[in-house]
């Protein structure tokens, strides 16, 4: 994310109507191509309007960037748009503005695609054309979703041109994907996905056909990986890994990455080694399950599963307590009476479930005394660098999730970023960060005499 740039996201729907007179393939290809091309010219017409979401601003991109309200002109710098946008004051936004300077540098302006019907390019009389011809009629709406990143000083005219061009090129991409996956007269709807790839690539948009699972799109991803020069052991381009825009909320209600709102500990000569990617915070009492006092390891396991799901390694939803218990019965680790009980599990069980449900292998680390954890800095740091997955730690009578360490190679001093599953309250980010339910802890956090087992899940090497 280039700071100082604004992300313009244009979403909307274009009507796709195509008449197929015969069912021979080259004709079908031609007809569909033509329809996409017609849409491209439609997008360049004067009746196209961009509506800036949550604001009274409308822009006519093909009329030299004319806009309303009148104080905006084609030469106005696009940052002027921000003053018109009404922001919601949600608590999350407030607290994130206070604590997290990182996210606020990427501003997103959302626009909607509209059409002005009172801009008739053709003023001729109303006619009714009746055509008799047997044909197949293909109809759908194309879900357009374009993103361009421009500096705040860029003029509205530049923004408009960039977005219109993005629309056209997206239509072209959609045409290719649609034709590629055509079966007879069945056309799969091409859908755009945005991915944020490591530097120097940045934000890219890829079109995938709807209804085709990731597992069947491996060849496409291989091509793209080589095109963008991405390593072939990380699923950068799986659908689950789409870029989450800063202003989008998650519909399932779980908090994502609460740790980003924390200030890192002040440790001399130390570096941060943190979990990579996105996880959801799972804790006591969620999902109407009262697991207060016995479910902490289950919740930590859920957090880990959510990580694998959101990085695209698994399409399974986060398992419930019962499902976790059932999978342990399935592998022969527990008796059938285990399902529905309130029995605790430990890191061995956690690694068994990860293997059984997600096909994920884990490394187990054992320390005979809690005090030894202070010396595990290097290993933990290495884990977060190479795997970057959350770690489940169980010992004494408690289970926790380690999301990262702050470790100094020189002094050996260490702090642990802990996500505590024992929290019983609501998804209130303020409370969770203020009260340390997600927070940095020192070596004294651990029971110095108890023994601990750590489950370090390993990333599958796949795309």
């Amino acid at each position, binding site marked *: 994310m280039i700071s100082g740039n604004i992300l313009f996201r244009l979403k*909307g*729907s*274009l*009507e*796709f*109507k*195509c*008449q197929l007179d015969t069912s021979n393939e080259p004709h079908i290809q031609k007809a569909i191509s033509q329809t996409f091309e017609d849409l491209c010219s439609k997008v360049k017409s004067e*009746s196209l*309007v961009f*509506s800036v979401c949550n604001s*009274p601003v*409308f822009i*006519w991109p093909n*009329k*030299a960037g*004319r*806009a*309303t*309200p*009148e104080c905006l002109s084609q030469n106005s710098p696009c940052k002027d748009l921000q003053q018109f946008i009404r922001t919601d004051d949600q608590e999350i936004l407030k607290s994130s503005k206070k604590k997290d300077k990182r996210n606020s540098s990427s501003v997103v302006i959302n626009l*909607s*695609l*509209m*059409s*002005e*019907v*009172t*801009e*008739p*390019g*053709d*003023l*001729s*009389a*109303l*006619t*009714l*054309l*009746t*055509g*008799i*011809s*047997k*044909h*197949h*009629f*293909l*109809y*759908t*709406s194309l*879900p357009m979703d374009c993103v361009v990143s421009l500096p705040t000083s860029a003029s509205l005219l530049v923004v408009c041109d960039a977005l219109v061009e993005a629309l056209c090129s997206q239509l072209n991409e959609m045409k290719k994907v649609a034709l590629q996956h055509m079966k007879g*007269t*069945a*056309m*799969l*709807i091409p859908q755009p996905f945005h991915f944020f790839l490591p530097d120097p690539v940045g934000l890219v948009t890829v079109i995938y*056909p*709807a*209804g085709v699972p990731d597992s069947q799109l491996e060849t496409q991803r291989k091509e793209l990986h080589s095109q963008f020069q991405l390593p072939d052991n990380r699923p950068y381009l799986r659908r689950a890994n789409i870029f989450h825009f800063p202003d989008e909320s998650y519909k399932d209600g779980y908090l994502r990455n609460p740790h980003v709102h924390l200030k890192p500990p002040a440790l001399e000569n130390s570096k941060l080694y943190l979990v990579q990617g996105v996880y959801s915070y799972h804790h006591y009492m969620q999902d109407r399950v009262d697991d207060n006092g016995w479910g902490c390891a289950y919740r930590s396991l859920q957090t880990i599963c959510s990580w694998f799901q959101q990085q695209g390694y698994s399409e399974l939803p986060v398992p419930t307590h019962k499902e976790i218990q059932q999978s342990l019965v399935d592998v022969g680790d527990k008796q059938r009476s285990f399902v529905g009980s309130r029995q605790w599990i430990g890191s061995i069980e956690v690694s068994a479930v990860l293997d059984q449900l997600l096909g994920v292998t884990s490394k187990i680390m054992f320390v005979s005394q809690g005090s030894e954890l202070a010396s595990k800095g290097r290993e933990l740091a290495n884990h977060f660098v190479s795997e970057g997955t959350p770690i489940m730690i169980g010992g004494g009578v408690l289970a926790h999730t380690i999301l990262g360490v702050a470790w100094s190679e020189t002094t050996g001093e260490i702090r642990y970023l802990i996500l505590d599953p024992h929290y019983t309250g609501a998804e209130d980010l303020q409370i969770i960060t203020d009260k340390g339910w997600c927070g940095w802890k020192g070596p004294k956090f651990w029971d110095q005499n108890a023994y601990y087992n750590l489950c370090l899940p390993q990333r599958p090497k796949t795309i």
Partner: protein
Amino acid sequence: MPICLQLIHSHSIQVTHQGSSWNNHSSVRMGRGYIVENMVEKYLSNLQAPDSTGASCVTGLFIGQSTSQRDFVVLAVKTPQRNTDGQRSSSISRRAWTSLDQLDVEWVTEHARQVSRMLPGGLSVLGVFLVTLPELSKEAQNALRELIFAVDKHISKGRLLSLTKEDVTEKVTLHICTKTRKAVCRTFDIQDPKSSAKPADWKYQLGVCTSWPALTCSVGLDLLIPMLEMHVLPQDMEKCIKEGLQVWAKQIEVGLCLINGKTLSDETEIVAGQKNAKAVQQTFQVQILTEHPMSTERSTASVKICSGFLILKGMVHCRAYLQNNKPRFKHAAEVIKRDLINTVSSRVEMFLEDNLMEGVDKGSVEQVLPRRVFVSLPGTTPCLCDYMFPDECLSDVSDRLKEMLDCVIPDESIDISQEAITAGHTGLKLKTTPTVDTLPVKPFDHPNKAPDSLKNDYVGVAVAAAIVLLATGISLLYLSI
């Protein structure tokens, strides 16, 4: 309910209702208030029963605008004579004096339906009137009740948009006795078949609609409506077009309106509060923006096997009026959108009624739909409109206006310049100034009108007049192609 009658002078009627309901425990609602244009009073006072043809009564319609608080009546039109080819013999007409059985409800409702097509947005048929001899006064109430329900039912047939809960459903009936010139005003709730007659206030006023703001826009249509395999032309044409139009109407209904380039909150008044009566009549340019809905359920495009297709393409001109007592943005948006939907569906209906469709075997046929023309009736500000088929000329329109609206309009006053005459690239591309009803207002400088636009400049009124003459010539040319 005592009726207080005041005869101001021999030609006018003033009716007020004083409800004795003030003291009742059961709360009888205060009736609706109708503010009626003075000219209507004059028109009504000239109606006699039996009339020159011997009919026992005179029926007619009221045209105006209803708001939640009160209603405005701007025009009264009597039902025209039905061409019954001499079915009315003198013996029948004598009998007709004694009862209202001969009341041709069907004809009244048909007249109402045709008149409602001639109304711009914001105006509608508000009610009916009945002028009878005193002997028939008692029957008159029942007859009026029957009429008002029948009229509303007939007009709502084929309505593309259903009524919203904000729509006023009370319609007015007025009975005038020829001897006493006493007028009885009642309203009925046409959504309630058991509705009883409620009293209403009927007040005359000068210049009810002289400064009603007008809203205009020109809308382009380009609808492709597939005809499913099972449908056969020409029988199913109406069904297909209707379904296609319903989808389009839905999009318009939820579309955004911009007035003078701005979208305002619903309750904002569009006319900056003008207290003085001599307000200048304003015209507002409206823009309508639509969004195509996203459908997320499917993963493949839907495929239908079709036997044909219909394309409705071209430009229509829309016009709507609002009463000028604090008109709000949401009403403005509603009336102009309704006019758009109604004008398209009216023309399609008229086209289908005329049955010009001759049965096409193969290939395609393009036919021009009737074109909208506007007329300004003397004394009222809102323009009314009519539709001119390609093979018609101005005198056909003025004949129709004489019959339907009972008024004489000179051919030159008919504005045919708002919509183009011919289709396709041969069509004249016009953009004209608004019609004669508006006073010259300073041009609005919209941000969306690019000065260096490739499109049309404003055409002066002088050229518009020249085009009226050209129109006749070109329509003849079209016929001969």
